[in-house]
């Protein structure tokens, strides 16, 4: 049972980390603001959620589960809100400046 959990946890964490790496690459290389924003929000919600899920599998303690869940909610929420605000400003004024 524990080995199964460990394998699952490691796999999930690896997926999450590769998500983050691809998102960073996207933010670096994609051509315009909106497509970079797209890369960012994926990393914020999916990448971190996968990493936290993997960490929860590897740790398996209820108190760290709570903390990890709150982390994911906060980061996803701030990613959504900041992304929305940036996109709104970008579309209405051409740019934030």
């Amino acid at each position, binding site marked *: 049972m524990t080995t199964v959990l460990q394998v699952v946890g490691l796999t999930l964490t690896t997926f999450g980390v590769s998500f983050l790496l691809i998102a960073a690459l996207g933010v670096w290389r994609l051509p315009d603001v909106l497509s970079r924003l797209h890369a960012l929000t994926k990393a914020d919600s999916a990448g971190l959620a996968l990493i936290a899920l993997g960490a929860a599998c590897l740790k398996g303690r209820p108190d760290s589960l709570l903390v990890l869940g*709150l982390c994911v*909610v*906060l980061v996803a*929420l*701030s990613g*959504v*809100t900041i992304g*929305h*605000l940036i996109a*709104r400003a970008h579309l209405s004024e051409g740019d934030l400046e």
Partner: protein
Amino acid sequence: MSLAFDILLAFGVVFTAAAALGTHDRVASIAGFVVTGLLVALSLVRLGAPDVALAEAAIGAGLTGALLLRSAWRLKPAESRVSPAIDRIIVALIAVCLSGALAWAVYTAPGAALYPALVSERLAESGVTNPVTAVLLNFRAWDTLLEIAVLFVALILVRIVAPAHPQPVVLGELMLPFARIVVPMCAFLAGHLLWQGASVPGGAFQAGAILAGGLLVLMLGGFAVLTPRLLSWGMMVALLGLAVFAVAALSTEALTGTLLLYPDGAAKIWILMIEAVLTLSIAAMLCLLFCGMPRRPLNDV
């Protein structure tokens, strides 16, 4: 592998700091500084100082970044007159020598640590089990009292100078759910850090900074209107921390004959009381430092 991690992290810290200081674009330098703060906090975790890392992440990266952003558009960029090349080369040489000398001096300094033995020897009587909290609020509580006084002096200076308030802006309908989740989270996390500060990393400063972050969200989202009445209440709360700490110092003097030597067995209660008030007061001070004070007409003062 962990050595490679450390090397990359150290490189990242210096690189982002250079990027932050090397550009004249305001947003780039402040964003670079915020990321530097985050990476520094990460390296402090690696150096085994999680208490400091929490404070650095909350204050160094979060609140200082907000402060700098507030001022970024109010300060005019200086005339872009560059100092002559020869000057810059000389300064660069001095800076390199300074860094080298500093690194060499710190690395070769005799490593006989004096304090860990003393701290761990007296930790049992301090009332808390986190050595950093024990040093801050028991062994060297006098320093912490003076530190709060320093914060208050800075607050008075800001009040005299009276920079303009940051104007709240309309940020759209997603702000309300954002604030509804983030602000209670900040309050909850502040309480958690305050309570656990007695045994594991955390404490009044970190909790106060997190609480101030929550208040900042309220202000920036336009949910809190900065009336003079609210600001003077904030000033009262800010003063309360200093006052309670000073009264505690005097009453310990009366009870035990020594300034800030807590009565036997009750140290934990005293420390927690002081820390709880300090948390509120630090949060109020940091907020007031951010939003500034109203400028009053001269005859009103």
